[in-house]
């Protein structure tokens, strides 16, 4: 049952991936921009069980690895997002004080995005990638946090509505 519902979310993520690749990457917004798919995945995971969060991270990670802009090997983002999805879901699961509060979800998502990117960088460093200067990395991470804090509240209602329809649960938001 849960797997069937999980499969239902695949076209949604595929759509977000296409939007990310064809629209968001073309915008060239300042401060490094943002990853719509990453934000979407973490918000989605924050509303799910840890298993679904991990599975969501797995699917979204695969998509992010397929992205042209992904510098790492296939599986790099997958590994990071499995951990991120599971962690974000784990933090919020069973505590309605967190899951029912939009501010908490935005906060968790923002921290999750920055942490995911940081882990991605560390993993890339271990895999022998060039990561650039520290100041540039800090600038990009700050920019990513800024954009996530801006974008997340705008997407929250839509994602909550879609999530509740896919998984047949009542939206808490």
């Amino acid at each position: 049952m849960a797997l069937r519902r999980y499969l239902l979310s695949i076209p949604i993520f595929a759509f977000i991936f296409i939007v990310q690749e064809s629209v968001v990457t073309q915008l060239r917004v300042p401060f490094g921009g943002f990853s719509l798919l990453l934000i979407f995945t973490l918000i989605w995971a924050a509303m799910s069980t840890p298993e679904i969060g991990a599975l969501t991270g797995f699917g979204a990670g695969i998509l992010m690895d397929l992205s042209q802009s992904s510098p790492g090997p296939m599986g790099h983002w997958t590994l990071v997002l499995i951990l991120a999805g599971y962690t974000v879901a784990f933090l919020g699961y069973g505590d309605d004080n967190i899951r029912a509060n939009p501010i908490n979800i935005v906060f968790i998502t923002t921290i999750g995005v920055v942490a995911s990117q940081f882990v991605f960088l560390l993993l890339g460093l271990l895999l022998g990638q060039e990561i650039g200067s520290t100041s540039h990395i800090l600038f990009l991470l700050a920019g990513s946090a800024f954009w996530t804090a801006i974008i997340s509240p705008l997407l929250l209602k839509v994602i909550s509505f879609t999530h509740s329809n896919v998984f047949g649960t009542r939206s808490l938001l």
Partner: protein
Amino acid sequence: MRYGGDNRGRLLIIVLIVTSLFLITLDLRGVGVIDGVRTGTQTALTPVQKLGSWAVKPFRNFISDVTHLGRTQNQINKLKAENEKLRSRLQNRKIADAQLTQLKSVLDLAGTAEYKVVSARVISQGSSTSFTQTVSIDAGTSSGITQNMTVISGFGLVGVVKAAYANSALVQLASDPAFRIGVRIAGTQQIGILSGQGTRKGVLQLLDNTTQVKVGDVLLARGSQNGRPFVPGAPIGEVTSVDNSPGAVSQTAEVKFFANFSTLGVVAVVVSNPKSDPRDALVPPKPRPTPLPTVTVYASPDTATASQSPSPTKPSPTKPSPSKSSATR
């Protein structure tokens, strides 16, 4: 209640992590399937990306303008300055091209006549307030130019060196009212004297009153002793009208100079007399009239039709019309 997880959940996480590590390993080992999947995805996404790029272009430009407000202004200023620079360079290039064309034609002419020449640029036009027609050139005695040397352009005679200085020379133009030159008509070899009139037209006075001169006859320089001040054979101009008034002592004709004195850029000073008289070799070829397409329009009040034909046609006698008019270009 805090989620504690169960064995099935833990197993799922482990399987997913192992899968991702497996993917990383495969990719780092260069397995072709992984690259193929990535390439396939990109191939499929490219048209969508192009569409997206087209769709978000105005928005992207707006963001770019907002974020690069200061830089955009600087860039505009920089581009403006660069544009001015390029425009100036283009103008200089046009001038250089025109001078090159003039130089080429003057060297062609000098080469045909076997004149030894020194090329020079016209650096100034003489003042017209003194009622003389002169130009200054940027070559003088240091280049072998001395007084009374013939000056030609690509079209023919320009004038004669009146004064030579170290690095410049003053040239009296053929249009100068004080200018006189012995000429002969190409072909018939009739001789006369051509004098400048202050314009592009001179007056020819034939020495033999019994000979006939025609419109279109070309005048060449007769030449002086040792080629100074005039070398033989230099083309001068063309007869444009003939004065055949009865009772005149000598026949006169109006001559239009080949050289256009107002557009002189590069000229050549003949510094050495040719070994042989080029005779009529420098007569410029007659210009070929290019056929112009003519358009004849017939209009009649009853039909109000118009027809176009590529050649002049006469109105048909079978269709007379009182308001018939024709215009030919």
